[in-house]
């Protein structure tokens, strides 16, 4: 066993000498997620700011003064400006103002006689800001109408709710955090798996087929270390690299989600509570627990293919299908409603992603979690036994 640790140490030493590889394997994920989340967050924030915009600049002509006070009461929506010097159409086009509102001169009279008066809005709905002004006007007019109707009903001595037999009230049960969690949960497991696989693949090839190719394997085999310990050492190394990159990815993911949650707590966009659950140590810890045996499975596959290959290219082409399988499963698993298939918790690899997905959307199912964990663990154990048996043959090491 000591020999295996020594070989593993050698691989890590060799890895540490290659700064660029270290950067791309371990440091890139560290900045990748914060960048990703910051970008998404930033996008939604600017979008939000654009949509809300500032107050709409309107010219209000209201001789009877029926709407003036209502508009003035909402300064965040309306800014009353003086009529433009030149052509109104041109002024709107030049974005000097958004809308002109003209209220009929005898509006107060019509209002008192219970007749309809007219409000004319001159705007350009193709201009986004102008369209927004119109929407705001509609809203405020509706509110004002409601008030007038209630006033009239009260004057007539009937219930102000006479014209409103019923009212719909919706209660939002889902929350944004949960929704984000579900979306993230659908692809983050696969992102994690892919990062783990890709992370250990390159190093696995370098340490196996690469050694053959570079002609250093024989010197390693000629030491007193038993061959199986060398294989274990390589396996341990590939496994450790995979785990490390999974860990770093998870950590980076957790930290970035955490910071989004904190930023969201200040703003109104994110309901922080349930999104924060994603960044909870227990969610990340359970996810990591599931990733570990999967990593061993991957490592076995990579080392098995790598040692039997004659060179790096051959190793790459034989390991790639494994990655493709994971990718295909990713596409397959993102299909909506898939989690309802009864046999899914028993499909290896897929069940791991399913379990992680449920962890992320807070639908964690202890039974499915254990099935996935134990199944992967068993599979990894069988694979380890198989690969060490297979590789501990002279013909696997000496391929020509």
């Amino acid at each position, binding site marked *: 066993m000591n*020999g295996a640790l*020594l*070989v593993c*140490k*050698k691989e890590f*030493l*060799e890895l540490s*000498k*290659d700064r660029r590889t270290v950067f791309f394997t371990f440091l890139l994920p560290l900045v990748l997620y914060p960048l990703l989340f910051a970008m998404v967050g930033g996008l939604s924030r600017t979008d939000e700011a654009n949509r809300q915009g500032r107050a709409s600049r309107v010219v209000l002509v209201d001789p009877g003064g029926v709407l003036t006070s209502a508009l003035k009461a909402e300064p965040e929506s309306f800014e009353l400006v003086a009529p433009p010097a030149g052509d109104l159409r041109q002024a709107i086009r030049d974005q000097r103002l958004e809308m002109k509102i003209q209220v009929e001169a005898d509006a107060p009279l019509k209002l008192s006689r219970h007749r309809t008066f007219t409000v004319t809005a001159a705007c350009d709905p193709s201009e986004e800001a102008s369209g927004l002004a119109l929407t705001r006007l509609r809203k405020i007019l509706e509110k004002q109408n409601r008030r007038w109707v209630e006033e009239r009903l009260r004057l007539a001595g009937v219930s102000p709710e006479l014209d409103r037999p019923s009212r719909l009230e919706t209660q939002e049960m889902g929350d944004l955090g949960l929704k984000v969690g579900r979306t993230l949960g659908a692809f983050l497991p696969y992102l994690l798996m892919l990062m783990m696989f890709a992370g250990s693949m390159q190093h696995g090839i370098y340490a196996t087929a690469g050694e053959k190719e*570079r*002609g*250093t394997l*024989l*010197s*390693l*085999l*000629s*030491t*007193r*270390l*038993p061959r199986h310990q060398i294989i274990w050492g390589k396996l341990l190394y590939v496994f450790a690299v995979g785990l490390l990159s999974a860990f770093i990815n998870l950590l980076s993911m957790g930290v970035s989600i955490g910071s989004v949650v904190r930023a969201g707590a200040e703003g109104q966009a994110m309901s922080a509570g349930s999104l924060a659950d994603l960044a909870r140590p227990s969610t990340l810890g359970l996810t990591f627990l599931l990733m570990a045996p999967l990593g061993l499975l991957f490592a076995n596959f990579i080392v098995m293919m790598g040692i039997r290959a004659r060179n790096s290219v051959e190793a790459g082409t034989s390991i790639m299908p494994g990655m493709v399988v994971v990718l295909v499963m990713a596409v397959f698993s993102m299909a909506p409603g898939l989690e309802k298939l009864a046999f899914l918790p028993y499909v290896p690899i897929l069940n791991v992603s399913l379990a992680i997905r449920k962890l992320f959307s807070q639908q964690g199912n202890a039974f499915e979690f254990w099935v996935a964990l134990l199944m992967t663990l068993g599979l990894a154990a069988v694979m380890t036994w198989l690969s060490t048996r297979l590789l501990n043959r*002279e*013909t696997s090491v*000496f391929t*020509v």
Partner: protein
Amino acid sequence: MIELAEVYKGFTVRDRKTRQKKRIEAVRGVSFSVHPGEIYGLLGPNGAGKSTTLRLIAGLMQAERGLIRVGGFDAGREPEAARACVGYLSGDLNVYGRFTPREFLRLFGQFQGMQARVAEGRALALLERLGLLDFMDVRMEGFSTGQKQKVSVARALLHDPRVVVFDEPTTGLDVLTAKTVLDLLRELRAEGRAVIVSTHVMPMVEDICDRVGILFDGVLYGDAPLDQLLAARHARNLDEVFFQLAGEA
């Protein structure tokens, strides 16, 4: 120190075109021995089975039949113990490019069960002897073939092996580096180690080998000092012997 008795080793390869399996008999009934304080030269053209024979001695491969004893151990039954007393140099002329000689040798010393400090001290002495001390802390990527081979030689001798197995140690080296290696081999002989080297070129054999065996197509011809061997075949040099054997085959 090294003893081979009726050793056989073959490989099964698959023909990529016809997809049929083919047997290659690389070593066929080879027997010889190398004693302490002796340099044995294993001669033969490419593909004769020299590397295979040396790999069998170094415990990297297992013989299919026959007996190999190295340093008193049965290489088939106790390959690790046998390997521990062998200093093996493969013909690959390659090292771990990302390491410096110091790091590389310290690590391999540990593989051989040595303390890192002890290994480093011994590495220092070997590299000084080989004239590579100035490059002790330089990454080996940019090393010349000669420099790489010197580091490999140091690696092979690091654990003070009683048996030295060098596969074509001078092939590809310039005369100066080759001389350094040959001089070192003489010293190893003087220290009482059993040395076996393989080659397909004459000069090295004439210079240092006490006895030689000619391997051709997996079969060993002769086991005597070079001049006796040449005289017996009425040949002036090694090439003529190879041509004769090729004609007989």
